[in-house]
């Protein structure tokens, strides 16, 4: 429909564009976008992006695995004390994070819990990119002594204790969950990953605006608040935010140092990406290992060419900017409580913390209070305007339904 346009339609669109570009000029300059800005706005969509299954996970999109993964995500008996589930920290009501500065499982952690919406789109997992795939990032917390402290034995016990879980495991992997099976934990992690892949955030006000511009739909575009438009201008222009927070998911998938201190309590530092590369390469469940289900090896390039550099020390993953209103506090250590604080951080940037070399993307923006509020309004427009319903519960597969 939208693709098949007649000449007549095209003529109308050009007129509408002209009106849109010219009309607000008299009233408010900052509302207008140049051709190059419009192009860059378009690059942050469309949303949602096309979903693709994970070639490295053979049960990606497998209904039995998705159901099993869903059940296990909320299963506290996987943990050493029987009280910590994935959902304890990744709470669906809070954009799949916990609202804490740093996570608390069996013990207190040092990093902020990331939200899990649209996690299928991430290229590296964890703030330090210590994982190159979603299933190994899902296996880590099960074994982590500070988070869940689980084990293969405990996991097998939970699976065998429930006819429904055992049946879904069998349906997904073609065999029964046995404690001695060295694949069991990886399989479970792949099932939990396949459920997380279904977590997609709906279009936000920004997406409606972006699509309206694309359609040259002046009336629909007008619904986007003026403050958010001004903020968007700063985001694309002076702020250079889109250099790192690029594309539909507002991240280039890489790592950066924006001058957030990275000491940890009580002593020492969080080495960030530098430690993440070490963890990644030492991890038997990375994509170069035997558990990658992509026989073509097409998904291994990124990992193969990772090279440690000095700048990696204290770099953290460029996070998505979607759903931020659900996921405060911010940064790898949750050190900034509000979006206002985040924008102030960029506004008052401490240049001495950023190594002076070559072209500078980050500079103190020295934003006025009003500009600060505009940028916050823009960031807020990347979150859903209304509360999200709870996640859709995946149905049990027919073969496992109780009679």
């Amino acid at each position: 429909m939208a693709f098949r346009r007649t000449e007549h339609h095209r003529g109308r669109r050009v007129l509408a564009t002209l009106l849109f570009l010219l009309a607000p000029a008299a009233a408010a300059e900052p509302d207008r976008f140049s051709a190059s800005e419009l192009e860059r706005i378009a690059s942050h969509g469309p949303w949602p992006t096309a979903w693709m299954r994970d070639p490295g996970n053979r049960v990606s999109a497998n209904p039995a695995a998705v159901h099993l993964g869903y059940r296990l995500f909320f299963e506290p008996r996987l943990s050493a004390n029987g009280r910590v589930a994935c959902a304890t920290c990744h709470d669906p009501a809070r954009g799949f994070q916990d609202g804490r500065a740093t996570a608390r499982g069996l013990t207190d952690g040092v990093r902020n819990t990331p939200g899990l919406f649209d996690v299928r789109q991430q290229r590296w997992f964890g703030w330090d990119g210590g994982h190159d795939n979603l299933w190994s990032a899902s296996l880590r917390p099960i074994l982590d002594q500070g988070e869940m402290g689980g084990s293969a034995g405990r996991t097998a016990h939970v699976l065998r204790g429930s006819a429904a879980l055992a049946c879904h495991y069998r349906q997904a992997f073609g065999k029964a969950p046995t404690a001695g099976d060295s694949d069991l934990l990886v399989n479970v992690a792949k099932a939990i990953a396949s459920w997380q892949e279904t977590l997609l955030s709906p279009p936000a006000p920004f997406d409606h605006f972006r699509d309206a511009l694309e359609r040259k739909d002046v009336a629909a575009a007008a619904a986007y608040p003026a403050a958010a438009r001004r903020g968007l201008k700063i985001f694309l222009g002076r702020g250079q935010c889109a250099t790192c927070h690029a594309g539909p998911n507002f991240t280039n998938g890489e790592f950066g140092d924006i001058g957030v201190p990275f000491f940890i309590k009580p002593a020492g530092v969080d080495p960030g990406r530098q430690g993440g590369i070490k963890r990644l390469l030492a991890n038997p469940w990375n994509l170069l290992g035997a558990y990658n289900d992509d026989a073509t090896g097409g998904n291994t390039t990124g990992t193969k060419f990772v090279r440690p550099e000095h700048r990696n020390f204290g770099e953290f993953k460029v996070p998505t900017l979607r759903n931020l209103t659900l996921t405060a506090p911010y940064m790898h250590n949750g050190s900034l409580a509000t979006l206002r604080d985040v924008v102030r951080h960029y506004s008052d940037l401490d240049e001495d913390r950023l190594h002076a070399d070559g072209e500078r993307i980050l500079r103190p923006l020295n934003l006025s209070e009003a500009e600060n509020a505009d940028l916050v309004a823009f960031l807020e427009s990347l979150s859903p305007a209304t509360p999200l319903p709870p996640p859709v519960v995946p149905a049990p597969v027919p073969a496992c339904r109780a009679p």
Partner: protein
Amino acid sequence: MKSPRHVPTAGAARRPLATLLAALAGLSGALAMLPAASAAEPKLPIFDAHVHYSHDAWDRTPPKEAIAILRKAGLKRAMVSSSSDDGTQKLYAEAPDLVVPSLRPYRKRGEISTWVRDETVIPHLEDRLRKFRYAAIGEFHVYGSDADLPVVRRMVQLAKQYKLWLHLHGDSDAIERVLVQDPEARILWAHSGFDRPEAVRAMLRKHRKLHADLAFRNDHATGGKIDPAWREAFIEFPDRFLVGTDTFTPERWYYIAEHADWSRAWLADLPKDVAERIGWRNGENLFASMMATK
């Protein structure tokens, strides 16, 4: 033993297992290998030519702890500068055998780009130079024609008067301009200007007193193997290069040991004599000796 390269490969089927084993070995390898290596041969001493200890660093890591970090990293010596200079003095007082002080024109953070036009920098430098001993003035940042501004000119004169090195972070244009002001100026070119090895070599050929540190660069070595163009530079000028961490944030003090080990790894890819010179002897000859004989 024959090199394993001559053994025919076992075929693709074995590879996943080999990868897994290699990965598992990697997990414990880091821990297991250190004592073995140090038992066989003592670690190469390192002269770290690029350490900062600014006020936020001494808040977090007080002098005693900081010195412990340097010693644990196996540093022979470290050239230290800070904003303000108090940090350097605290560290020097704690370990005069380990610290070579350098005087920054910056009194606090945030002066990196403003100092070249700030006349008050001069009395600061003059005052500190009267009171304390240094091997160098720096590290300071200056690019292109800014090097001819009055504040910079006066600083170059002070270096001449006190017979000090200039630790300059900037482009080759700035270096040329300083050398016009004082053809005898001794410059340590921070980060080798982030220039390509060919350009660095050309500068070293042209200016016989120019030296260069390799701080915060990775392009000269990957996985302990030296890049061919850089190797030529190191072999041509074994006396002119130094290594350095660059602790530009207080957190980076916790990277000093890591950096020393990284340096040892690629230095091992050079003839022993060249490795020792770049690793520590050049620093000892050029800077440490100044503190000893003054």
